């Protein structure tokens, strides 16, 4: 379990992380979400023991990162932002170094390296120099070094950043596979990733924790949550007809689509489908919206900006 207690970090006069507190249980994939420069990476750097917090602390499986840093680091695997690696080494030599630094000796070293290599399908590039690898392979090497010692806590800073869609999918699959018994903390500014991967999401902006919820919970904050969007020929008529329903609060026409927002009464989707049948409209598309993360994200972070 991870417990962050008022983690704070200043860089000179700049307050990068401002009293962030949270607790995470095993089995959680926690997503840090926020604009660039929001303090996501700084928080991760403090959790992993790279930076000392200016104030506050965090406890990783019973080990305080300030007073018991080495033990805390042993419980963690970390992929720093951009997956930095010793480019001049071969994949094998590099992973062996990490295994040895993680305290493995003798036959355990090869066994650990091989297990990680299998998991990330790196066998074909084992002997290759890291700097000659493609971006996707480099990222996989970075992940391999993070999971080598099968840590209960994984901290991955933008694990899919800069990868192509197939590689992103691959990395997400890997994270999901490992998620059941670990705590995985990822940071991202890709919103779809939160929905695809995380069981819990935190929005961080200007160093402050602004929202801490499940992805579904965040979606429910959206104006679009349970709204109904449809496309048909005569948008204006439909808008005035649907806007008159008790179940609807508001209508909006944007880019050839009509969106009806729910009021607090009844079931809007049922009401809309009933009206469509009654009026005999030709509807090309009909969609019940779960909510739009980008809109929630903007609302939450803009409020912080204004405050």
């Amino acid at each position, binding site marked *: 379990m991870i417990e962050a207690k008022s983690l704070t970090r200043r860089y000179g006069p700049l307050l990068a992380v401002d009293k962030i507190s949270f607790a995470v249980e095993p089995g959680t994939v926690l997503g840090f979400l926020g604009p660039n420069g929001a303090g996501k990476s700084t928080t991760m750097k403090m959790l992993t023991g790279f930076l000392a917090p200016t104030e506050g602390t965090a406890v990783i499986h019973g080990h305080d990162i300030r007073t018991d840093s080495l033990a805390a680091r042993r419980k963690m695997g970390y992929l720093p932002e951009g997956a930095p690696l010793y480019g001049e*080494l071969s994949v094998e030599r590099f992973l062996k170094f990490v295994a040895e630094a993680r305290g493995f000796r003798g036959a355990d070293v090869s066994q650990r390296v091989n297990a990680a290599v299998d998991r990330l399908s790196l066998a074909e590039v084992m002997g290759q120099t890291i700097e000659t690898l493609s971006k996707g392979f480099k990222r996989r090497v970075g992940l391999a070094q993070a999971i080598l010692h099968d840590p209960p806590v994984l901290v991955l800073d933008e694990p899919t950043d800069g990868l192509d869609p197939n590689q992103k999918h691959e990395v997400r699959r890997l994270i999901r596979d490992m998620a059941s018994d670990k705590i995985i903390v990822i940071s991202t500014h890709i919103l779809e990733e939160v929905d695809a991967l995380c069981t819990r999401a935190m929005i961080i902006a200007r160093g402050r924790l602004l929202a801490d919820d499940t992805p579904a919970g965040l979606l429910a904050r959206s104006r679009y949550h349970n709204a109904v969007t449809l496309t048909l020929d005569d948008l204006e008529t439909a808008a005035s007809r649907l806007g008159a329903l008790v179940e609807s609060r508001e209508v909006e026409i944007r880019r050839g689509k009509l969106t009806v927002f729910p009021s607090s009464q009844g079931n809007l989707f049922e009401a809309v489908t009933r009206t469509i049948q009654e009026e005999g409209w030709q509807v090309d598309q009909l969609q019940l919206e779960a909510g739009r993360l980008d809109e929630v994200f903007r609302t939450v972070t803009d409020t912080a900006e204004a405050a």
Partner: protein
Amino acid sequence: MNNLGVILRRELASYFATPVAYVFIVIYLIMSAAFTFYLGGFYEREIADLEPFFRFHPWLYLFLVPAIGMRLWAEERKYGTVELLLTLPVTPTEAVLGKFLAAWLFIGLGLLLTFPIWITVNVLGNPDNGVILAAYLASWLMAGGFLAISACLSAATRNQVVAFILSVVVCFLFLLSGLPMVLDAFRGWLPQAMVDGIANLSFLVHFSSLSRGVIDLRDLVYFALVIGFWLMANRIVLELKKAD
């Protein structure tokens, strides 16, 4: 200190995985030979010793050791691998010492590869091999001093060129502080004790007495202190600057 060896081996692997090792060793051997034979007048002196070989080591190291030392931390910081290294269960002391020792051993290897000159002088005459051994030790210790300075300054920047220039300047000051031209600048306004102190900081003074075969404990302690001081400074600078 379990991980000292692990870091040391990784560092050495990096030297030999890049041209750094080969370029350094080849240049070092060529330059030291050129200095010995052309500037030092090894043959013309007709004395069977290695004084003309060791005499130029301070000047050779002035440029070559910062060239090795400049990458130690600046490169790690530039590529972000310092974050990887220092989030492994490795203490900063292990990291600083491991990197320093790897580079120092590597320079030692270069020094050992100058053995043909030792064979040559033994073929040509009957040198005092004890003095030669002491001079080799002195040379390696002095290289350690230069290296500790370079390692510390390398942690202060992520730019290797800046690290190199800073290191050369600071090493140059340490080298020259015993020369009259530097001391004269202080003599007018500092008490004699402090001027002596500055003179005693000089690498040249301690190196030349050791390399004449006079193994004085004070000279050994001097180099040990210089190395220790700069490595501690390295730890502190690293701690302060790693976040930038």
